[in-house]
């Protein structure tokens, strides 16, 4: 009887313990959304949802007429996202095609971890190199006075997102059934034709997931845009204009605002907006990845 009781405890204690850990993890993750909402909701009430999202002026510290529109900040984020993605995607996909279809197993074993290492470059380091080398180069190349602009930031953000995009594309390509490739090669198609007409289309949903997750990574990038995007609140009209994306605004301003003030609340509202954007992007990617696994099996 005593023995049975011991077993009961020793079996159920770990279950409870790990269950509690899992619950705590999920709880802490869910509470991010709740705390952002609680801290930021006041801004929507006071400023008004349409004024907040569609207002072009963001000037919370103005004494006479503070302005609370984040549209210019969102456009800054959008410009950098589109530009960085259009640099990182072809580049990342090429790397993925090489790793999964062309490289010998030995080269693959060397290259894969090295590409993965790019993700360990701290973004502050990329930003610093941008200040020191890339911005002066861009300024000289386009003959403009200041190289701190959307283009410079996009190039560096593309580097930061490259390992994410390359490794997810690689997963998607590698998970295409070997039978598809063999069938194509047996029909006389060349290796390139097989990659182009069979492997890439079959990996389609996974590749779109890679785009989505890469995009999420790009939108959230903070230090690079804080350091080299030029930090201007004016509405951008060209790729060589300085911009201030949403993430940079939060990082610059949050230290200097009074806790609980309207400015504080509206920065949390910007954070909440970022959270929702990345959440939707990740959710879409998730649906696509889930679809991918039902492919070719």
């Amino acid at each position, binding site marked *: 009887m005593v023995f049975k009781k011991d077993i009961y405890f020793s079996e159920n204690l770990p279950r409870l313990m790990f269950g509690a850990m899992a619950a705590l993890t*999920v709880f802490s993750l869910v509470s991010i959304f709740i705390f952002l909402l609680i801290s930021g909701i006041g801004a929507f009430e006071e400023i008004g949802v349409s004024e907040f999202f569609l207002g072009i002026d963001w000037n919370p510290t103005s004494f006479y007429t503070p302005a609370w529109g984040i549209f210019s900040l969102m456009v800054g984020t959008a410009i950098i996202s589109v530009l960085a993605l259009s640099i990182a995607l072809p580049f990342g996909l090429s790397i993925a095609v090489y790793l999964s279809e062309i490289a010998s197993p030995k080269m693959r074993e060397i290259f894969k971890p090295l590409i993965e290492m790019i993700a360990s470059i701290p973004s502050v380091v990329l930003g610093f190199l941008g200040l020191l080398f890339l911005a002066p180069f861009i300024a000289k190349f386009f003959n403009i006075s200041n190289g701190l602009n959307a283009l410079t930031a996009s190039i560096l953000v593309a580097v930061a997102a490259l390992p994410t995009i390359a490794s997810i594309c690689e997963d998607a390509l590698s998970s295409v059934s070997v039978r598809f490739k063999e069938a194509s090669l047996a029909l006389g198609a060349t290796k390139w034709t097989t990659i182009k007409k069979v492997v890439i289309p079959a990996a389609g949903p996974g590749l779109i997931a890679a785009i989505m997750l890469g995009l999420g990574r790009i939108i959230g990038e903070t230090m690079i845009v804080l350091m080299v995007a030029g930090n201007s609140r004016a509405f951008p009209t060209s790729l060589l204009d300085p911009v201030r994306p949403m993430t940079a605004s939060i990082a610059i301003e949050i230290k200097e605002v009074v806790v609980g003030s309207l400015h504080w609340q509206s920065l949390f509202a910007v954070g909440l907006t970022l959270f929702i954007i*990345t959440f939707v992007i990740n959710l879409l990617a998730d649906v696509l990845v889930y679809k991918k696994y039902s492919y070719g099996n």
Partner: protein
Amino acid sequence: MATNGSLRETIYFYMFRGSAFIGIAILFIVLILLFLPGHSVINWHFLTSSWQHRDITQGGIFSAIIGSIYLGIGVMLISFPLGIGTAIFITEYSKNIFWKKIIRLAIRNLAGVPSVVYGLFGLAVFVNFLSLGTSLLSAVLTLSVMTLPWIITASTESLEAVPQKFRETSLALGATHWQTIKKIVFPAAFPGCVTGGIIGIARALGETAPIIIVGATFYLSSLPTSPLDKFMALPYHTFILATQHSSPYASSYAAGTALVLISLTFLLSFGAIIMRYNYRRKKDW
């Protein structure tokens, strides 16, 4: 036609190979570009003495190195057990497919939350709500929450890679569920959990945006003695020297600090990658 096709194939394949080489070149270019302006400031004195605010050429970055190491250890102490425990629950205990899916969805989505948003979360919860102030502890907790999804993902993969046969054999021999997990499943998965975790820690150490918000400072006369003290950290130190310092030497000191930071994160990730490689080669299943 045939030669035309194979010529095109050759060109494309060179292009793909080329982009892989460029990708790797980025790593070396970053190191070289940091080394050029930064190597001249790195010496024993720079690494082991404390920061001098008045004359940056006199001081070192010892406090920032120690701050980053404290941060890394703190994050490891919290996120490793929580992350691995959660992964064990997902793979070994949770039978309800629906909840499992919900937990996984939450984890994957939260891995995509921008780091600056984690900073805001830390500010609202740890700094203000729990009144921990801008401190080492707030930063450790914030970065721990941020690294959790990465560690859970790596650990779950590692636990799932343990063959089902192992579990069935152990149970068939009369071991209980917990004994099977403790003696069979966990030891087999442990190296994978740890290497995934170390890569997570390396990334967390390079994060700057969250610690700007919840606790790092640029100048402290002494090392933190309690978890509630403010602290210096390498990425923040790099950031301030790179952007807000007026000294003409600031950029070479920023480069020196960045070089120390990147050596730390590269050593950790590279070490973990080598460990993972060795362990995969040795494992006989």
